[in-house]
């Protein structure tokens, strides 16, 4: 996984999502355009979306404030990742295939999604 991919994955974490709009412009910075506007609008129209709504879903403009925040976040994540690698290596964790065993309860992902999941 590249550093860009690592950061994107971290961005998916629920805690980070609470930072609201932060993740969206980061995503735009980190990703390359793979869908042209016309095609995206056509796909959105199939689900009843207006071109504006499609644009909003894929919006990736970055402000000056956003740029500074982004750079700060990259530094923090880099430190976290480097720290994790330094700690995990002696424990022999690196190189193992992850056996994820997160515990979910009803209303969190499986079964069905609950209002409390969005808080």
């Amino acid at each position: 996984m590249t550093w860009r991919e690592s950061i994107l994955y971290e961005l998916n974490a629920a805690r980070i999502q609470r930072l609201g709009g932060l993740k969206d412009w980061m995503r735009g910075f980190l990703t390359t355009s793979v869908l042209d506007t016309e095609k995206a609008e056509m796909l959105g129209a199939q689900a009843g979306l207006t071109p504006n709504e499609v644009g909003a879903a894929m919006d990736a403009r970055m402000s000056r404030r956003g740029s500074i925040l982004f750079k700060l976040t990259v530094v923090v994540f880099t430190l976290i990742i480097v720290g994790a690698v330094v700690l995990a290596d002696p424990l022999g964790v690196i190189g193992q295939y992850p056996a994820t065993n997160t515990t979910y309860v009803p209303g969190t992902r499986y079964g069905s999604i609950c209002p409390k999941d969005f808080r």
Partner: protein
Amino acid sequence: MVRPGPGCAVWEITLKCNLNCMHCGSAAGKARSDELTTDEALQLCDDLKGIGCQGVAMMGGEPLLRKDWPSIAERVREVGMDLSIITNGYKITESKFQRILDVNPELVTVSIDGGHAAIHDKIRGVPGSFKEVVATLRRFVKSGLPTGVITTVHKMNLGELTTIRKLLLGTGVAWQIQMATPYGRLTYDHVLSKEEYYSLALFIAATRKKYSKKELMIAGAHDMGYFSRVLPPLQVYPWQGCQAGISTLGIESNGNILGCLALPPEYVEGNIRERPLKEIWNDSAFSSYTRRVRRTDLGSECASCTYSKICKGGCSAVSHSMAGGLHRDPYCLRLIEAELKKSNG
């Protein structure tokens, strides 16, 4: 080896149903001839607690058609597990409604598959079902119970999403959107194409962007992913690979056990009448397809993906039905984006 228990057991307490949905993955209608007795069901509640299960999502068929559902629900609560009830919202009498309030589940969910009666009723196979489910939804919301709505999307209702959205705006419900897979009654010709699936993803992303959580909480289910280069995450939490037999467990109404209820019968790995649940769950062979995934198990496109270690090839149920094997889910946003880019030259 004793494993941590599942966070959620999705339990079909009966296959009996009063609707006839075209997309029903278990082709529900008549009860199975060998459904668990009340005593067996109550014992199963204890056994689930015994393996460390944290919660039960009670579904069917239509779970509220099973006469002893309140006893099962109460036992789930008594032993200290969370409870959610997934109902079609049809023919919920006042007494049933009161029983639901008495049981006080962590979540009650109804299914809405169209924004208009004509579409919902056609999909659900019973005229008048739309009117009833909307009324049921309003009663649940008014009662203050945490309420969810599930919409299962296929070719017939992809165009209905904006109308359903209008219906749900401002109600405080959590809206779960999932793709219909060709099991049970759903035929392949109704399954979304990959581009339509991408349209659905765009809809979820656009709605999350357009509306605050106060206005509408919306998320894609486990089969709405993964790791798009363009769109933000659609699920509530990041995808960590299929959780069948890891943090979720499927139980059929006759006591059959499988890693996930969305999987077809060939994935049944035991029955609680023949073997204790604890033994099945802790068996090292149980759900080995998700518990021990190797890179060589993945389809070629998934194996070469940078997210392969985390994703492990997407949803097992979609992968099995649409690609003929596990760990190669073709309904992957990242993969579709690559294909679209390629086709655009």
